[in-house]
């Protein structure tokens, strides 16, 4: 099948722009990146079919019709992207309600572990200090009157 250059350009640009936004920390930008990636994927699927007449029996001769299968797949993808958008939006809004902005923060627990690794500590270290008093408690039971 002959490849159409402008379609390749469209796919490339949409993916490039989508990824650039996806790697941001602002959730709104991440969301826009996801939308662009979805659009890019749809164009990619679309380009696998030759353009032609709409695949409606009776309205076009079977030979002139474009392949209907990629269309069905894209239709599903479009609606799923709508769902994704709604969900990410809700996330962004909630983040803004809770912390006043919609930036994805680094995980605190992961940061803590990284700091441990830099200090060459084991994860038990903190625990041992906190429980030092415990160890002194005798296992032996107290005398009963």
């Amino acid at each position, binding site marked *: *099948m*002959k*490849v*159409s250059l402008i*379609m*390749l350009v469209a796919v*490339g*640009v*949409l*993916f*490039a*722009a*989508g*990824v650039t*936004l996806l*790697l*941001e920390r602002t959730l*709104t930008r991440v969301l*826009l990146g996801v*939308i662009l990636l979805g*659009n890019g994927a749809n164009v*990619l699927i*679309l380009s696998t079919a030759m*353009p*032609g*007449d*709409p*695949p*409606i*029996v*009776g309205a076009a001769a*079977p030979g002139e*019709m*474009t392949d*209907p*299968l990629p*269309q069905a797949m*894209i*239709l*599903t993808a479009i*609606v799923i992207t*709508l769902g*994704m958008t*709604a969900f990410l*939006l*809700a996330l962004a*809004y*909630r983040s803004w309600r809770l912390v006043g*902005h919609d930036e994805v923060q*680094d*995980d605190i627990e*992961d*940061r803590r*572990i990284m700091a*441990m*690794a830099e200090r060459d500590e*084991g994860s038990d270290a903190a625990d041992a200090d906190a429980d030092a008093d*415990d160890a002194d408690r005798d296992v*032996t039971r107290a*005398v009963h009157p």
Partner: protein
Amino acid sequence: MLIVLLAHLAVAVAAPPLVRWLGPRAFYLLAGAPLAAAAWAAAHTNEVLGTGAVEWTHPWVRPIGMSLALRVDTLSWLMVLLVGGIGALVLVYCAQYFDADEPDLGRFAGVFVAFAGTMLGLVVSDDLLLLYVFWELTTVCSYLLIGHSVTNRPSRRAALQALVVTTAGGLAMLVGIVMLGEHAGSYRWSEVADSLPGGWYLATAIVLILLGALSKSAVFPFSFWLPAAMAAPTPVSAYLHAAAMVKAGVFLVAQLAPAVTVAGGPAATTWRVVVLGAGVATMLYGGWVALRQYDLKLLLAYGTVSQLGLLIAVLGAGGRDVAVAGAAMLLAHALFKAALFLVVGIVDRATGTRDLRRLSGLGRRAPALAVAAGLAAASMAGIPPMIGFVGKEAIFVALFDAGVTGRVVLAGVVAGTVLTVAYTLRFMWGAFASKAAVPGADPGVGAATKVDRRVVSALLAAPMLIALTGVAAGIAAPLVDRLLSPYADRFAATGPVYHLGLWHGPGVALGLSLLVLVLGALLFRAGVPTGRRPARVGDVPASSGYDRLMAVVDRTAVEVTGATQRGSLPFYLGVILLVLIAAAGTVLAVGRPFGEPVQLWEAPLHALPVAVLVVAAVVATAARRRLTAVILVGVTGYAIAGLFLLYGAPDLALTQFLVETVTMVMLVLVLRRLPTHFSERPEVRTRWLRVAVGTAVGTVMAAMAYVAVGARTAIPVSVDFPELAVSFGGGRNIVNVILVDIRAWDTMGEVSVLVAVATGVASLIFRRARRLHRRGPGSLPPKPPDGEPVWLMAGHTVAAGRRSTMLEVITRLLFHAIVLLSVYLLFTGHNTPGGGFTGGLVAALALVLRYLAGGRHELSTAAPVDAGAVLGAGLFVAVGTGVGAMVLGGQVLQSAILDFHLPLLGHTHVVTSTLFDIGVYLIVVGLVLDVLRSLGAEVDRHQDADRKAEQTEEMA
């Protein structure tokens, strides 16, 4: 037998409420479960002896060949008696041992009964996989029991240590079991034993299984966990050391020995080396360390380690006489060790200490206790007429007759027994003797220790009974011999066989027994250097090897986690994308599959939407205002809709257009609350990195698109779709027929995702569960004031400044027409562009219009239903269509074409898949309604609330 097992489960579940209700007295009731097991064994004695085994099988997990196969042969019968009998007595003991205010007693009681039940299951399992399941269950139960004092760090540590060691061994064992089972084609040990593989395959499997058995039985080098496990309450220790847990390993070795030792080849040799070497080494190590202990309980714990080594060596040695001796020793050990631990518990409770440096004169103050302890200790030391003496004699004789290897092992065992006698004496002396001045004792504690006699008399029954059983078993040695010899007869015997008995006349065994007693006494008199550091009683013995290993694991985990789990979303995404670039890029660069001809465009007109979307996408990445970015991304969507149209996809174009519109509305609804500009951070460096990664991904994807499109040489599967769509799908719009018929499962999955998403959105925005009812219509708007022209039901609720009469009029005029259009699209979608998705989106847009014009009250009037109900109804209709087809005899989601004549309407052509499309329609409407209620109405409410709060603040 299964009923007995299930009874344990039921009793374990019932234990916590029972204990809450009755207090510690509930233990008397709970003892019924293990007692039933012992009674079962007693009742089936003749059957087991007569037929060799009682079996019961029920298929369970067929794909892996696992069955509920229970089999009670002589060895299992002995174990059931011990597990049940000692379990019941320990529970009775618990009833007096614990105070009513003991924390978590209910949980403890439940776990204890479960522990007894799993141990019971373990010894009656014939299926090796089932055995493994029970094996791990005992591990889990013992973890909970050892760690009973959750606030106590040594206790938690000991529990974790036992868990880690025995689970690691158990995993090795599982591999060995699978190796044997896969070779034999069955996991029933009674069948596997007859078709063992040979050579190194068997040897490997055996070593793996032994790893499990030895770690469970605390044999060297895994010994360290058992002494540490005495952090558990004393009744647990008694049960754990005597009948349960550690005996599992011994039991497994005893069960395997008859088959493995005769297998020959490297397997039998490996088995002997491991079992005898580790066994004797453990016996000597445990005995030596026991001699140096000051804590009575710890002394006994190391004694157990020593005895387990002996049991493993003897039961694993292989040979008829050794086997009967080992079985007798197994019985003897269970009896005396249970009794002794219970005695230590009494000493501890009655005096408040287990430190033999602080105990003095206890023998005079509590003579009955001393008698019980003395009987059990005599059995441990091997003094007639105890069962311990019978067992030890038998071991001496059997090993003496077992060739050179036997004599070498015998030497080790004799040495170990000398140590046993010595530490037995140390125990009795330490617990009961009157000590005027013990070296290293506190000078202040001279005379007799204070004893609480009530505790002694309340608790004495169980240990006394167990100790007396030991005496009775010794006296009735011929009977024990008759009961246990069927197990030993699994080994082929040549010549006269040995019989257990108290008196065999003067001989090697008797000589050795006397020698051992004398040497043991001398060793005790001489004393043993007690190590550098006088251990405090209650200290958990250290296990430096284990600690170092765990520290290394911990450090490695921290380093690996710290290096890979950065906690940063862009980092994770970046790694994934870089892998994509590297993997796909390498294939493209190396394979260079670029040979297909390229044309600039299919038609010049295509360049228009492409140019628009390229510009919009590139500018969107640089936009600083949220709204600008949103609009630009929306532009790319509309451009793509145009491209769809040019490519001959009117369905897609319509859907994309509608979705893009709904998306824009949603974005704007949220953006009104967020800051206008993106928060900028000084990230120039990372910005270029992002652009670089993005460009690389874009290039790779474009190249992949080129290769993929160029590779389309085969005839597409869809070439028959036009004909199929009409004949089977009953529709002329092929895309729609694909969605609701040919690939209906896809659509089913998709709508399920939509329902989940809608629910997720609502639960993110409505912060409290009880507010979720606001997904419903909420309160009705107040009546519109008279005298004004009413365009919308709730138009007057919008603040005057934001009200647009123009919009209200348009909405009023268009709303019903749009809804009608949506229904039209839904029903004609099968033949012309349209369908459930498009129809639903159009209907949703009508609702959006109402909301924008009249606010949240208008939305309630327009759709006085709960969004969740709409979603549920849609899913119900969609699933119902699928199920309905199945019920009517077709495949799931198969569609049928109905043609009939109706008065007035004339000829009617109905395809059942339209019903499915109606489900889709409802779900799409429900999704958008949910989004409007959440991101629209509820966000409005948040805004109003915030504004009100600000005003109050200003006033104050």
